[in-house]
Structures are given as structure tokens and as C-alpha cells.
């Protein structure tokens, strides 16, 4: 046990100092076995769990889609009843948007952040574990309802009054509401953790202009979540109250307002769309230059563009409500804003193209995913631009054109970068390379399948096919388009299957990667693959945007030398260094907590609370609440080993 102290001059040593690595390993290692598995706070472990869980949901959501694509393959098919179809398409949307797209990016950021920022863990390691456990619990909660036949059935944005008790009598919407509120807690605490880590845990010298774009993307998304999540949680809470306790927020006969739901939902919903693409765009901004053998063109513009997109993203929610009869004068403002928001995206697109143009591409699978993403991003972007134009949107909205748009955004700007990121960072995660030959097959199957499946949706939309119909009549001009779409979606699914095959096979048989297989410039590549539990034997010092490329690319003004071989040791228990938000000047030695069961227990207590509310088992709800309270009380108990309590001897 360490002796608590008020201040210390940190020892400085070389990273390969005798005995340092074993000592740090002893301090940071998670206990083997189930106890360690449940209590770990290692961000790498949590990050991988996030990614694996999110992919499990991606597959579930994908299978749901394949099933209803069969129904839509031709006119007047009746594989599914309307109710089954409605639960499937809603659960598909819920899964992809809430349980896959956001969490998978949290997974990557969880794994990568401390490594790219030069820290030993996230700022709040136990909160990090809590965020994962609640995510897992809420996913199971939502899917348990679905498995019992009570899946949500009103589309993922769940408009009232159809979601009200009068029109939707089953418990379906109650479970959806409670599950999303539970998930919101996970997203919120995760987001707070990212923001605090971004502001406080960057390696000494990693000033605000030297931070990898991935961190900019995730911190922007997280900041947005902090402001946006309460809107959707509140909307679902008010709906749940209406359904269970007779309140009248959305209840029209008593004076409630259905549009209040839409405002609250989209005040969240639109920023959320950016939250699930900006970190992925960040992955491309960091990954693409590695395979172009040059730094990203326009770093500052891209970073500022990321933030600007998010700020504008809070001002365009009404473009989801263009057909609701709001006055055209106010709609025109939102229409203009929705078109202009494309400007910061254009910054990123031209920065990526210029990076390839002025570099020399290395044809890896990751490069193919990142480069093709630019085109998919553009397609998803311009279809969004079209829906921003108010009179055009009155035609486009709620047709398959919008379905095409949302899939180009979510698959093009989320799945493609994510799969590219898997090819890029898998060697870091596992110490082994993914197979490149299979990777090329993987890429082309996904790319062709995706465009075959989803591009025709634009046309079926322009030909008037409404979204969310469980079947359609023949003679509408949509038959062959839907057949192609269904075929393409199966090709795309084969692509995802190839990825899984590659991952499973390469985990055992992949070529050894070494610490830096791509000769990449950022800090995560300076440590072994996979990294040790403590990440860095000594805290690195950063002097430029590209610590591992120094001397090989021209320095920026103000750059100095980075040090990864030597630095602060910090081995009096779990410790890392806290730095100032702008210039990253070291200011404090932070004590990091031991592994803890508090997060998993709190998640279980909260899940019990929500399950009690959903099933109207009030004692369970109360027990869950009391359990949660006790858990938090124990969690926050001031600890001497964390430097939270007074030392009677000293003062």
C-alpha cells in the first residue's frame, strides 16, 4: 500500500529501466478470473467489450433487416404480419442507431484515447466501467422485451399519439422508453468521462493544436451528448408518465401537444446523428494520412470544422419537422441552416482529397475503406443537402429517399470508417495483422453490396415509395428496385461475414504486428501490441502533432522534440499526470482507483430499478433504487489511497 502524500517531485527515468515494467504490471494488472473480469477498469478491456458488444448488436440489427428485406423483395409479399414487420423495422432502427452506432465509436475511443493522448487510463476509470455495464444492461433490457414479443413498434423516433396508450396498448413502448432512458445514463457518464479526459489527461506538451482528430471528433460528440441526451430521456420519461400515470403532456383531448414530442426528440436526434459520425470522421482524418505517407492537410480547419458542425447541428432539428405545418417563415430559417451546415463538411472532404493527392497511397484494406468513405460521405451529404431544401423536402421526406440518405450516413460515415479502423487498429488490439487478401475481398464485397443495396433506394424514393410500409402494390414502379435492394443487402451481409471470418482467423494465425506495423505517427504506436495494462512505462512528452514522425516531416512552428523513451515514472500505485486544458502543462499527479465491483453492481441495481418500473413490480424498483444509492455512497467514500482524505500526521 502506498503512503499518501500531498506533493512529490515525480521520478524521471528511461522507459526500459530495470524492474520498472514488472512493478507497473503488478500495480495495474487486473486479477485473472471472473472477479477480475467483472471489476476491471482497464480502458482497453472496456473498449474491446464495447466494440464486441456493438458488433453483436450490428449483426442482430442486420439479421432483422435481412428478414424484412425479404418481405420487400417483391410486391404483395406476406412473409411477416404487419405487426411483426413493424416491430422488426423499429427494432432494427433502435439497434443500429442506439445500440450499435454510438457505442461502437465509444469502444474505439475508450480503447484508443488514453493511448493516443499519452495517459495510463481514462480520467474516471470506474465511471468508464459503469458506462459499459449500463450499455450492456440496457441492450439486454431492450432485447429481452423484443424477445418476449414486446419490441418497440412505432419507428425509432416513436411519434405520439401512436405511441400513446390509447393507440398502442401493449407494454412495448414502456420498455422502449425505459430502455432508452437507461442507455442515456450510460451515454451521459461516458461522455462526461471523455470530456474530462480530453481536458485533463493529455500527455505533457500535447497542446490544443497537437491533439489527434479522433479525439476532437469524440470530444465534440461527447460535449453534444451532454447537452442533447437529456432531451430524449425527458421525452421518453414524459411519454412513460402519460402512459402509466395519466399525465397529459402529449394527450390531445386534454390539451397536450404531439409536436412537443417531436421537438424534444429532434433536439436530441439531430445532434445525435453528428455524434455518431464525427468520431468516425476523426478516425479517417487520423488513419488516412498514415496510408498517404504524409500529415493531414488542413489540420486546424478540420478540427474547427468538426466543432462548427456540431454547433450548427444544434440549430437544425426542425428540418425533421418540415411537414408539420409550422409557419413557413420559421421553417425557412431552418432550411437555410440545414443547407449551410454542409460547409464545414466540405472542409473535411477537400482536406481528405488533398491529403491523398499530395501523398502517396499505400493500398491497404484500411486505405480502401477510408478512401471510399469519402465518396459515400459525399453521397450521404448531398442527399442531406437536398432534404434541407424545404419545398423539395416536402416531397422527399418519409420516402425511401430519406431511407437511402440515413443509410449512406450511418453505413457510409459510420460502418465504413469503423471497419477501416478495425483493419488499422486490430494489430494494436491483438498484436496480429488482419489478412490483407481476405481484407480486399471483404472491402469489395461490402462496397459493391452496399451501393447495390442502398443506392436504388434513392430512386425508389424519387418514384414515391413511402418508408415504413410492410408491403406495396404492384404497378407502382418499385418492383425491380426493391429486388436489387434486397439482393444488395445480402451481398453486403456477406461482406460483414468476411470481416468476422478474417477477425476470428487472424486472432490466431495473423502475422505478428510489432509495435508500429504501419509506421504511423501517434503515441499509441510507440508501445507494444497489445499494450501493457499501464499503457506507458513512463509518461510521454509531446512536442508536435506527429511524435513518431519527427525529423521525417517538416516541423510546424513551435514544435519541439517529443519524448517517448523517457519521462515521469509515477509508480506509487496507479497514477497518471493531470495537465492543463489548453497547453497541457503538468499540474498534478492523479491517483487512479483500483478495480472495483461498484460499477457492475450499480448497473445491476439500476437495471432492477428500470425493470421494476417496466413490469410494475414496485418493490423491485425500490430495492434497485436503494441498492443504487448505497452503491454510490460506497463508491464516493473518500479514500486515503486516492488522496482524498486528510493525513492527520501532516497537517
Amino acid at each position, binding site marked *: 500500500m502506498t503512503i499518501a502524500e500531498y506533493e512529490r*517531485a515525480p521520478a524521471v527515468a528511461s522507459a526500459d529501466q530495470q524492474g520498472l515494467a514488472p512493478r507497473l504490471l503488478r500495480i495495474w494488472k487486473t486479477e485473472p478470473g471472473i472477479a477480475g473480469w467483472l471489476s476491471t477498469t482497464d480502458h482497453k478491456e472496456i473498449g474491446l467489450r464495447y466494440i464486441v458488444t456493438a458488433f453483436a448488436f450490428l449483426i442482430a440489427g442486420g439479421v432483422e433487416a435481412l428478414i424484412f428485406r425479404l418481405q420487400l423483395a417483391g410486391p404483395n409479399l406476406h412473409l411477416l404480419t404487419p405487426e411483426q414487420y413493424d416491430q422488426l423495422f423499429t427494432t432494427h432502427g433502435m439497434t443500429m442507431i442506439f445500440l450499435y452506432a454510438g457505442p461502437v465509436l465509444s469502444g474505439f475511443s475508450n480503447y484508443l484515447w488514453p493511448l493516443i493522448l499519452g495517459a495510463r487510463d481514462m480520467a474516471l476509470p470506474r465511471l468508464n466501467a459503469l458506462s459499459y455495464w449500463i450499455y450492456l444492461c440496457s441492450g439486454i433490457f431492450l432485447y429481452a422485451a423484443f424477445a418476449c414479443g414486446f419490441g418497440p413498434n412505432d419507428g425509432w423516433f416513436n411519434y405520439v399519439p401512436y405511441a400513446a396508450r390509447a393507440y398502442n396498448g401493449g407494454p412495448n413502448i414502456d420498455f422502449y422508453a425505459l430502455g432508452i432512458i437507461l442507455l442515456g445514463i450510460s451515454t451521459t457518464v461516458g461522455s462526461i468521462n471523455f470530456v474530462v479526459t480530453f481536458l485533463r489527461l493529455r500527455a505533457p506538451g500535447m497542446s490544443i493544436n497537437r491533439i489527434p482528430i479522433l479525439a476532437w471528433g469524440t470530444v465534440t460528440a461527447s460535449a453534444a451528448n451532454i447537452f442533447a441526451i437529456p432531451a430524449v430521456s425527458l421525452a421518453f420519461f414524459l411519454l412513460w408518465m402519460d402512459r402509466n400515470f395519466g*399525465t397529459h403532456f402529449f394527450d390531445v383531448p386534454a390539451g397536450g401537444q404531439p409536436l412537443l414530442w417531436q421537438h424534444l426528440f429532434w433536439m436530441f436526434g439531430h445532434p445525435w446523428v453528428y455524434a455518431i459520425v464525427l468520431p468516425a470522421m476523426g478516425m479517417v482524418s487520423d488513419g488516412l494520412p498514415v496510408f498517404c505517407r504524409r500529415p493531414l492537410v488542413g489540420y486546424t480547419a478540420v478540427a474547427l470544422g468538426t466543432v462548427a458542425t456540431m454547433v450548427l447541428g444544434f440549430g437544425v432539428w426542425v428540418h425533421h419537422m418540415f411537414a408539420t405545418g409550422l409557419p413557413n417563415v420559421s421553417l425557412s430559417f431552418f432550411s437555410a441552416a440545414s443547407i449551410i451546415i454542409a460547409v464545414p463538411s466540405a472542409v473535411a472532404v477537400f482536406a481528405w482529397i488533398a491529403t491523398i493527392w499530395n501523398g502517396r497511397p499505400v493500398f491497404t484494406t484500411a486505405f480502401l475503406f477510408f478512401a471510399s468513405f469519402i465518396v459515400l460521405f459525399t453521397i450521404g451529404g448531398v442527399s442531406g443537402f437536398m432534404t434541407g431544401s424545404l419545398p423539395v423536402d416536402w416531397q422527399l421526406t418519409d420516402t425511401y429517399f430519406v431511407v437511402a440518405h440515413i443509410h449512406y450516413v450511418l453505413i457510409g460515415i459510420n460502418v465504413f470508417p469503423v471497419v477501416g479502423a478495425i483493419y488499422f487498429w486490430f494489430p494494436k488490439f491483438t498484436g496480429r495483422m488482419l489478412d490483407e487478401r481476405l481484407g480486399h475481398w471483404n472491402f469489395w464485397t461490402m462496397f459493391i453490396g452496399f451501393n447495390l443495396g442502398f443506392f436504388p433506394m434513392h430512386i425508389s424514393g424519387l418514384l414515391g415509395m413511402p418508408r415504413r410500409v410492410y408491403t406495396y402494390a404492384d404497378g407502382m414502379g418499385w418492383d425491380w428496385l426493391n429486388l436489387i435492394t434486397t439482393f444488395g443487402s445480402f451481398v453486403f451481409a456477406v461482406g460483414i461475414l468476411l470481416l468476422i471470418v478474417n477477425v476470428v482467423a487472424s486472432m490466431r494465425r495473423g502475422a505478428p504486428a510489432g509495435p508500429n506495423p504501419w509506421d504511423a505517427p501517434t503515441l499509441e504506436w510507440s508501445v507494444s501490441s497489445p499494450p501493457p495494462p499501464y499503457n506507458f512505462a513512463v509518461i510521454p512528452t509531446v512536442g508536435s502533432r506527429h511524435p513518431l514522425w519527427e525529423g521525417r516531416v517538416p516541423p510546424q512552428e513551435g514544435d519541439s522534440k517529443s519524448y517517448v523513451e523517457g519521462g515521469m515514472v509515477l509508480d506509487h500505485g496507479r497514477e497518471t499526470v493531470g495537465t492543463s486544458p489548453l497547453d497541457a502543462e503538468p499540474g498534478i499527479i492523479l*491517483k487512479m482507483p483500483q478495480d472495483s465491483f461498484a460499477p457492475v453492481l450499480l448497473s445491476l441495481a439500476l437495471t432492477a430499478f428500470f425493470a421494476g418500473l417496466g413490469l410494475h413490480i414496485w418493490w423491485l424498483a425500490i430495492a434497485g433504487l436503494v441498492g443504487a444509492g448505497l452503491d454510490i455512497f460506497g463508491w464516493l467514500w*473518500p479514500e486515503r489511497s486516492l*488522496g482524498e482524505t*486528510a493525513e492527520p500526521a501532516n497537517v
Partner: protein
Amino acid sequence: MSSATPASKLPVGAIDTRATGWWAMIFVVFTEASLFAYLLFSYYYLAVQPHPAGTFPQGGTPSLSLALPDTIILLLSSVAVAWAQFNIERNDKRHLVWGLGIAAVLGMIFVVIQYFEWAGKPFTLASSPYSSLYFTVTGFHMAHVVVGVFMLWSLFAWAAMGYFNRIRYAHIHIGALYWHFVDAVWIAVFFTFYITPLLGLK
């Protein structure tokens, strides 16, 4: 071996506003403030819709006879917490305990008065959009006060156990941040429900 890191002394552990918990609480406050902003948005959104006479606010303009003293009590409890913070920064552990205890008691008085305020209302949660809003928004606030009172008693106990001194007081400042927020947001709630009808929004 080379490093650019200066070997000067650095504080260790949870120190004042450099503790990560303090930064986390800042963002907890941001997200909670957003929650109340959306709640009050819902109020104003429904308030500006047409209503049958006398239903918004239901039962006429709400009386200030309990709400105003209640507001003052909550503000005084914030003052007590500020006093506790001031004391611990000067290593006055005894008055730290007193400050926290007074704040917690004032918080409990707020809860009791608010209970009578609720009981005196001529409507229930399910009477009208106004009544639903009234009980939901003040209920959300009440839940925050209850959590805050538990938190203040916890800090009181830890302070009484001698856990804090003029260097180790991060817990106090983190808790105080939350409590000041709960008080500040009450001002917004109070203004919305009790003052705007007086200003003509009904």
C-alpha cells in the same frame, strides 16, 4: 535518457479544483441544467398554446405564501454550504461540520414545506397539462434536493470523522457545486411557475 519534463514538485491526489471529480461534476451540472432547460421548454411550449380559461395555471396564479419562504430557505442553505467551503479552506474543521449540518437541515425544511405546498394544490398529477407539468418539474427538482440532502449528510459524516483538511477538501467542493446548482435551478423553476404568471403568461 532524455525528457522534457521538469522535475519540480507536483501535488498528488484529489486537490481542490484540479481533482478529476470536480471536472466531472461541472459536466454533470451541464447535463442536469440541460434537463431542466428542456423541462422548462416543455412548460413554455404548452403554456403558449390555447387553453380553456383558468386551466393554465390551473387554479389561478400560484400563491407565494409558502413558495417564497421556501425559496429563501433553499438559498440560505446554499449560503451555509459556501460558509462550510470557506471554513475548510482555512482548516476550520469544526465550522465545516456546522456549515454542512445547517445546510442539510435547511434542505430538509425545504422538502417539508414543499410537501405542504404540493398537498395544498387543488389538482393532481393527472388533472391537466399544467398539473402534469407542475408536479413533474417540481418533482424533478425535489428529487434533486433529496439526493442533495443525502449527499450533504454524507459529507457531514465524513467531515465529522476528520476526513478533510485545508488541502484535502475536493469532496466538499464537488458536493457544494452540485448543491449550488440545485439551488440555482430552483430559481429558474420558481421564476417559471410562480413569477411568469404574475407577469402575464397564463
